[in-house]
């Protein structure tokens, strides 16, 4: 019974969110049916659009997979944005420094640089939390701001495109070497190496979390640090590991955003989400919607990716601002979180009504396996 509601509730929440979206489209004077049609068309209408959706979903998936590691260890990593930037900056700097390295070597190297950059940026709040009890929510958010300003400085100064120096001074690097560009997998679409890489990363995260001693320790520390410590597991080391691994995957998302882009450069607009497009936050949403399960984060990320590409088409076809996608994003989170409260309330009612035993209350009487999403939301709220 609980398992059933566990799957249905988030989908129901998404449906209700779309219903609200429809009302918003209505108030903007357009037809919701046409709007939905435009969104679906925009996200999946042609092979190229499906590829574009997959590309949009890739950073969300990488960040989401990283977030599941941190959240499973009860570390709330809100620093995806900063970790993306750290990974992007280090890998970009490497590509600028050794542009003539052959492709087979340079691509793995920039990927590694991104992992190291994001991992180190994540390790900072990890060490602060483990050894100085600094709240990681605050430190990761603060480090987002530090990373953004560091990027703005570097892109306006040391790393700026020489062409921009005397002219408009757009904060961007020069076009990076083609030797570092992610190869396109299907000719004529934008589907690049980053897409299968992200899916693979999510699978690896699943394997690490549930099939290795490292993941066992991370989850033990996440559920009950006292028992983990008494059993000889180092809580401090695992907190640092969780945030480093989480940051490394976000850093990888930064690599994808630079070396998978058509412009092939690190470019921002000076604003907070200029480079990342808020992938560091949307990835958290995708992970939560996926019940903090790395494998469920895959379809979840593609859903949110399709929302983003669909909204672009919505704007083009019906002149509805693509901010609607952001609103839908928020509504889905809101409904998923609150529907969990509704479900708790329902469960309570079921418990009470046990005085008239019915078949469906049978399972309420025996303890059931905790549902993943329920667990996830309890940990985060």
């Amino acid at each position: 019974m609980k398992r059933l509601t566990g799957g249905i509730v988030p989908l129901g929440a998404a449906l209700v969110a779309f219903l609200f979206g429809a009302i918003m489209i209505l108030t903007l004077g357009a037809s919701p049916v046409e709007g939905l049609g435009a969104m679906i068309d925009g996200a999946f209408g042609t092979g190229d659009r499906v590829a574009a959706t997959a590309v949009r979903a890739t950073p969300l998936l990488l960040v989401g997979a990283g977030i599941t590691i941190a959240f499973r260890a009860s570390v709330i990593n809100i620093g995806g944005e900063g970790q993306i930037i750290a990974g992007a900056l280090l890998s970009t700097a490497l590509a600028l420094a050794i542009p003539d390295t052959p492709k087979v070597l340079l691509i793995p190297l920039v990927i590694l640089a991104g992992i190291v950059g994001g991992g180190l940026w994540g390790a900072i709040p990890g060490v602060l939390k483990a050894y100085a009890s600094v709240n990681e929510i605050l430190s990761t958010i603060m480090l987002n701001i530090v990373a953004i300003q560091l990027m703005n400085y570097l892109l306006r100064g040391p790393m700026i495109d020489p062409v921009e120096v005397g002219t408009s001074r757009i904060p961007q690097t020069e076009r990076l070497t083609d030797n570092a560009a992610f190869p396109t997998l299907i000719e004529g679409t934008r589907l690049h190496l980053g897409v299968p890489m992200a899916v693979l990363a999510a699978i690896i995260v699943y394997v690490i979390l549930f099939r290795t001693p490292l993941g066992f320790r991370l989850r033990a520390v996440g559920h009950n640090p006292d028992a983990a410590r008494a059993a000889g597991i180092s809580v401090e080391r695992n907190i640092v590991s969780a945030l480093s691994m989480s940051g490394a995957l976000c850093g990888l998302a930064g690599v994808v955003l630079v070396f998978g882009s058509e412009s092939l450069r690190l470019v921002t607009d000076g604003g907070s989400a200029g480079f990342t497009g808020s992938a560091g936050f949307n990835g958290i949403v995708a992970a939560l919607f996926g019940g903090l399960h790395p494998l469920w984060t895959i379809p979840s990320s593609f859903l949110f990716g399709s929302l983003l590409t669909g909204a672009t088409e919505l704007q083009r076809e019906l002149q509805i601002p693509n901010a609607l996608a952001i609103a839908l994003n928020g509504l889905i989170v809101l409904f998923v979180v609150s529907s969990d409260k509704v479900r708790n309330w329902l469960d309570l009612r079921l418990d009470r009504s046990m005085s008239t035993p019915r078949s469906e209350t049978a399972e309420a009487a025996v303890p059931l396996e905790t549902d993943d999403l329920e667990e996830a939301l309890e940990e985060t709220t």
Partner: protein
Amino acid sequence: MEHAPLLTMRNITKTFPGVLANDDVSFDVHAGEVHTLLGENGAGKSTLMKILFGLYQPDSGEIRLRGEVASITSPTSAIEQRVGMVHQHFMLVPTLTVAENVALGLPSNRGFRTDLDAVSERIVEISEQYGLSVDPSIEIWKLSVGERQRVEIIKALYRDAELLVLDEPTAVLTPQEVDDLFVILRQMTANGTGIIFISHKLHEVLELSDRITVLRNGKVTGDTTPSETNRQQLAEMMVGREVKLAPDKPHVDLGLARLQLRDVSVKGDRGTIAVDGVSLDVHAGEIVGIAGVSGNGQRELAETIAGLRPAESGSSVTIDDADLTKAGPARTRAAGLAYVPEERMKDGAVGEFEVSENLLLINHGDPKFRRGPLFDFAKIREHCQRLVDQFSVKTPSLDTPTSSLSGGNIQKLIMARELDSRPSVILAAQPTRGVDIGAAEYIHSELIEQRNVGVAILMISEDLDEVLGLADRIAVMFEGRIVTVIDREAATREALGLAMAGG
């Protein structure tokens, strides 16, 4: 009808799908008596009380209050009919005062404004009447556990409860607080209150009760009075078979000192000295029991031995001559310590983890459970199934979330995990607290088994019966010091009690 019982529950039957929770249970309470409900976890005590409190409706049977058929449909209607309940886990708001907590949920006489002065006055009256001595203006968080329990009792009395249910009220109290509580309860019965006392501590039940009803598997298996029975009989009524309250202990020759504590001093959570210069040797083949009222440094001492709490300089902790004074839990365990912590759900097991995962908590890194970098689940299942069978942990499956097992089975799981590590020293804190009799019997026999094969065991327990039944030597802790060490043969309950009180 001059002396109709305060409460009559007649032929109560309550089924849940697949479970007969109460099977034709009849139970009554007269004004002015303490009627104890005794039974193991799952015997049906809680269900019966939830029916009385309106949380469940019985399938059949009737409830009469003061001779009249009563319909109790919710906790509110129970309170209106002057039934009060003191839950095992207190229902108090820590940041509010005593008076505010008592008034919570009741209408004020002054409309929107609170009426706390009147409430406080009434609390003082009740306190004086029953000797409860609680200051109505103090915040709950400043009170000790015993005082909080008194606030719960006041809450019920304030609502004019004539019948009071106390659900395992002594589980959280020190022996001194238990004595105080019993004085209060006797005062209440003298004033005509009827009390339902739920407990499984046999000597308390015998001390306090006027009548005792024993439940097992939903049925009444005994209806007796303290003068007609004894601990042994009560235990057998609860368990349904012969039990050994005092296990057999063969003679074992003492070996070398395996655990050595020298001048161990430890600071507590508040930064003051909690353990003050403790020196103690535990030899191969003996069980040393540490007796004492909780809060006298036992917890801190155990945590220091386990490597979880740093010792002050000058202290020394060694196991088999390995110096572990500054070692963390991992190194201490590697040196041969098995640790059964006092709070099993906090320090002993991860509630959300499956049974198999908790069995693996201390040795999940062992290469024999891996194939390459990944877990070898076939081997893990085989290992865990063997432990579950060997230690008769009752669980539906190895994948069951540990928190859904009973306390006794969780403790058996922890024992299985710890003893499987083939320790040279076992540190067991409150090994059978809150555990049913069958499981306690089993845990005791396992500890003695380990002692017989040359393991050194340090057992910390507040339960004097447990210490007297198991230990070869008994050390009494008071205010952070070991005040006396007595051989079991020379120990008497009276002498230990005196030492525990610092005398």
